[in-house]
């Protein structure tokens, strides 16, 4: 394994001291209460409180959170769901699993969907608008809510990367009928496996989600709808219960790191930082900026031991898997531009100032030499 000076994954650091978590895990093991157990109930309460909704439901992944939320509001084969053109494949995967069709909207320079371009995409078949709080940046939800009300189309938020992000001080995941979160190991709040959560204020949606994640069972022997098997393991909920109290703190640290990058990177004319609107609280699941000669910079940084990444190099709408939508190159110019010019730097809470400075200096050196 390569020895990075500034590595991307911080998991070994996060889990250096795990005795506290292991104790909880071993209690679950002892109790034999592995599916839909007590720790899960506790976690769901804590999570709802953290985000600020009445309810939350633990599911098997962020993808499933999206799929089950859409199923809960009745999205089915042939329906259309409006979403962002630059998201991770899972947003669209969740839509496609239900046989619905993703309808893409281009994005702003902050990677969030352009709310001015939504209305032109609405048809009779549109059953849901799904904003993606991409990289941890909250979409302009005030505007989106107006559109949703005007056309009576519900919003389901893909907040997988946006835990604790907010718009006008209202958290992501509290605007739509449902908010979808991921607990994947690389997320700001993570567990030791795949995992996801849906938040909602709607009792009916909450009850429906609980059915959908557990085979549609109302008791052990009777099911009233055909559901799925998508439960957050009790053990993982126990891990989540230990980690959830750190989320606010680590989010603040990420914001501090990003602000430090911003201050320094804004001095480099070959870099462009997306506009930071004061209404959007960005939690920096990813720190993504634009760079001239991006591929050169990426190679240079990797050689210098900085584990940079691209989120993501090939736009979704041009992927083989979405050929059936009939899109052609150039349909979403902002998305195209981003795929070619963006670069992600490590921004996690465990980075030391020394490391941030090293990243900044390396980028400076690259442009000085080129």
């Amino acid at each position, binding site marked *: 394994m390569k020895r990075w000076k500034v590595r991307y994954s911080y*998991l070994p650091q996060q889990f250096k001291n795990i005795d506290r978590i292991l104790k909880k895990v071993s209690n679950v093991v002892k109790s034999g209460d592995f599916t839909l157990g007590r720790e899960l109930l506790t976690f769901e309460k804590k999570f709802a409180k953290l985000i600020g909704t009445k309810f939350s439901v633990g599911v*098997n*992944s962020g*993808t499933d959170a999206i799929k089950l939320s859409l199923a809960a509001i009745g999205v089915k084969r042939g329906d259309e769901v409006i979403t962002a053109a630059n998201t991770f494949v899972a947003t669209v995967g969740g839509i496609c699993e239900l046989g619905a069709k993703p309808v893409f909207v281009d994005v702003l320079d902050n990677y969030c969907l352009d709310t001015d371009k939504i209305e032109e995409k609405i048809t009779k078949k549109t059953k849901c608008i799904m904003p993606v709080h991409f990289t941890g940046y909250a979409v302009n939800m005030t505007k989106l809510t107006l559109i949703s009300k005007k056309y009576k189309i519900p919003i389901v938020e893909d907040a997988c990367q946006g835990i604790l992000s907010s718009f006008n001080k209202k958290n992501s995941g509290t605007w739509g009928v449902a908010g979808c979160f991921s607990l994947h190991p690389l997320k700001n709040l993570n567990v030791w496996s795949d995992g996801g959560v849906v938040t909602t204020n709607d009792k009916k949606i909450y009850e429906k989600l609980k059915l959908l994640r557990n*085979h549609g069972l109302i008791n052990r022997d009777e099911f009233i709808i055909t559901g799925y*098997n998508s439960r957050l393991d009790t053990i993982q909920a126990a891990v989540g219960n230990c980690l959830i109290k750190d989320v606010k703190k680590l989010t603040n640290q990420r914001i501090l790191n990003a602000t430090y990058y911003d201050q320094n990177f804004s001095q480099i004319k070959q870099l462009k930082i997306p506009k930071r609107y004061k209404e959007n609280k960005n939690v920096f699941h990813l720190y993504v900026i634009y760079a001239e000669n991006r591929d050169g910079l990426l190679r240079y940084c990797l050689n210098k031991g900085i584990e940079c990444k691209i989120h993501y190099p090939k736009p979704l709408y041009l992927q083989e898997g979405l050929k059936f939508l009939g899109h052609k190159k150039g349909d979403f110019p902002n998305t195209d531009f981003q795929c070619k010019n963006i670069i992600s730097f490590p921004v996690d809470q465990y980075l030391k100032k020394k490391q941030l400075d090293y990243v900044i200096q390396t980028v400076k050196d690259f442009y000085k030499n080129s």
Partner: protein
Amino acid sequence: MISFVNLTKQSEEEKKDIIQSVKSVLKKSNFILGEENIKLEKLIKKYTKSKFCALLNSGTDALTLALHVVGIKRGDEVITVSNSFIASVASIVHLGAKPIFVDVKDDQNMDPYKIESKITKKTKCIMPVHLTGRVCDMSPILKIAKKYNLKVIEDAAQAFGSKYQNKSAGTFGDIGCFSLHPLKNFNSLGDGGLILTDSKKFYERIIKLRNHGIKNRNYVDEFGYVSRFDTLMASILVKRFKKLNEIIKKRRNNAKLYRKFITTHEVFIPAETKNEFNTYHTFVVHIKKKRNQLIEHLKNKKIMTAIHYPIPIHKQKAFVNKFKEKNHLPNTVDQSNKILSLPINQFLKIKEIKYISETINNFFQKK
């Protein structure tokens, strides 16, 4: 109290091993699709003599992905049984296909001789369910599948380690689907599942589909699912695997003891034929009359039992609301009123099995 399952006991025995596994995975922090998964897949392939194995997030997902890759789609028909756990049918319904039920034999498994009359132009697949850990009568089923060019997907969720004519469950059809749910004989500490197949094509498509359909981090050929077995659990199961044969032996012996101790003629116990090697995920007997009174009586005597399953799928609300036609499945319905699952877990003591059997014998003798 004689409980139906005893996960607490199992966990207690293995606590040290489990915590050690957790620690070693944490050290590497490779939580998703890690090397422990590959290790476990290898062990399972060897054990079942199957060419390929893919670990997934649940038995339900195993069925869904299997049906998906053999090409089941909207409007197709899949022949299966109504006395299974709902997951078998849900996976068919979610792909837009229609479940067609055939009745079962005395042993609760699909009656191969009732399949042909259900085949139509739309039939694409037969999905036998190896209920209770007993493999279906596969020879005639495979013959019919061949004759009509149908795919066979085995719902072997309850039958890990079971055999038919000395060949492992899940290796007869195109794909075999298993569950690793905590209540299974070979169990995880959360949801889990897997598929077995000899087809490289099916295997490669499934391992793509289980991971969003992505070819690598940045390229997606077709939209998939998220259905990955946790590395943590894989590392625990690599250790647990060593105990599997012992567990199966214990359960088989418990079944043998029941057959010896239960003497009343009011109880019918389906025989284990010489073709079968059953692993007894559940031990189901048929109570000819007064089943519900017997359950109450056993409960009073501190014996926990269960019914797998009291309401056949074709009678469930979700099915009736979706599919209008009537099903005539006399054995399935009759059995749902008679079956009773007795405790069979590997932690039972001989004297407990004797006590359960005698309690049943006495219940009927008294009358």
